[in-house]
């Protein structure tokens, strides 16, 4: 169902200096929430508008290639789901379902690809989210590229070992996932030990290298996203 190798490569990115990357994470989070609401309540046109917005956002953030890789990596899942949707529903409903999944996936991928985990931690701290939750979120995000790298290495090694099929048939996928999960758990244990040894979390307030700012661009993109939801919600109001 998943091309784990391609999926893992999707999330190996370097931080870029683009307006999207520099947008305050909270604005991005609210924006993503509005878009999610739009694709859930909206009809096909609304979803297409959201899709276009997210694609423009990805282009500005220079992550279009990663988004294409992400969609390519889940293609078998999308095809299977599409076939099932077209069998059980009308073509219009099936298209809406498929577009919802694709657009939702791109929204999440775009957020992960353009948000620095330190920025996210700082933003969450600003709205008084408990430290433990911030740290858990931050380290989960921090782990994504590492686990992605492990997954790529593992996929290559296991394909050559003949344990995983290079043609993305699910054969051997459990072996690979077991390896990746076990390795991630080992990494998490080492990380926890290292953090404990550094007295991490003792101080109530942490210091950050960069100071987050609410940029003009961030506000504009949030307004655009809000407008999309309001426009479609108002279309259904009497």
């Amino acid at each position: 169902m998943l091309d784990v190798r391609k999926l893992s490569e999707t999330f190996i990115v370097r931080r870029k200096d683009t307006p999207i990357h520099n947008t305050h994470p909270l604005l991005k989070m609210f924006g993503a929430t509005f878009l999610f609401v739009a694709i859930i309540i909206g009809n096909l046109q609304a979803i297409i508008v959201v899709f276009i917005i997210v694609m423009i956002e990805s282009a500005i953030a220079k992550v279009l290639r990663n988004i294409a890789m992400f969609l390519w990596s889940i293609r078998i899942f999308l095809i299977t789901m599409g076939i099932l949707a077209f069998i059980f529903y009308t073509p219009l409903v099936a298209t809406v379902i498929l577009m919802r999944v694709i657009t939702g996936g791109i929204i999440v991928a775009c957020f992960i690809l353009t948000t620095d985990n330190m920025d996210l931690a700082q933003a969450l701290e600003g709205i008084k989210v408990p430290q433990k939750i911030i740290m858990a979120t931050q380290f989960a995000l921090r782990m994504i590229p590492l686990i992605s790298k492990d997954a790529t290495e593992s996929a290559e090694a296991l394909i050559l070992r003949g344990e995983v099929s290079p043609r993305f048939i699910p054969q051997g996928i459990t072996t690979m996932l077991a390896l990746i999960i076990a390795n991630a758990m080992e990494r998490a244990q080492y990380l926890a030990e290292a953090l404990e040894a550094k007295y991490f979390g003792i101080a109530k307030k942490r210091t950050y290298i960069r100071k987050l700012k609410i940029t003009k661009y961030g506000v504009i993109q949030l307004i655009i996203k809000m407008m999309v939801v309001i426009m479609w919600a108002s279309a259904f109001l009497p």
Partner: protein
Amino acid sequence: MLKAEDIWFRYSKERWILRGVSFAIDRGLHCIVGPNGCGKTTLIRIIIGGLRPQHGKIIAFGRRIKGIKDAVGLMVYVPSNPTMFLVGPRVRDDLYKASRDPNMSLSEIIDVLGLKDIMEKRIFELSEGQRHIVAVASAILYGTRIIVLDEPTIGLDRGYRSKIIEALRLVAKNRIIIVASNDLRFVKKCDTVMLLNDGKIVMHADPYDVLSSREFPFDDKLVRFINIMRKMGLPPKELSDDIVNLIRRALC
């Protein structure tokens, strides 16, 4: 024969990681050395078909390697984190699964690498060094014509390192073994060494020629020792390891 022809590769538009890498190697133990971040692992991943270069090609035994599918059955690859290669769950299971080489028996490799005591252990109970040695054993047992290893001696003590070298030397007679490593004690045991620097192979020669060349970027006691021996007209290659170590201790 494994050939790389004019390989150019970059991850992003900013910088070329590999700039026109070419080499041709035949059976034997070959090493890629170079400073950290010079592109050793990238080159290795291109060889196995994991990455596609922007320009150039890899040809292994007449087969063009365009993607990883082309390398299946021809190569086996052990990444620098051997945990990602070992499927276990126990060492014994992993080695049994790997045993496909008719010329190399499981008991032989167990003896050479000294794996007898850890055969019943689970992969996740092993130390980092032990995982490396089990991964090398598995790779050898696969019997593929090309074995690609990324930093196989990282974190290994002298005993384990010697065992790995011994095992690889044993199979290097009829296979191509490519190793990315900066472990100079390993490098000197190879048949040829490719010195990768600034995206290019600046030297591809006998280990002693590479280690004693001006191009070699590391200042190491072993390198200095080789240079002294050279000046004295002694080819250190012909001296036994014990004598080399004895002289090294006396000199350093």
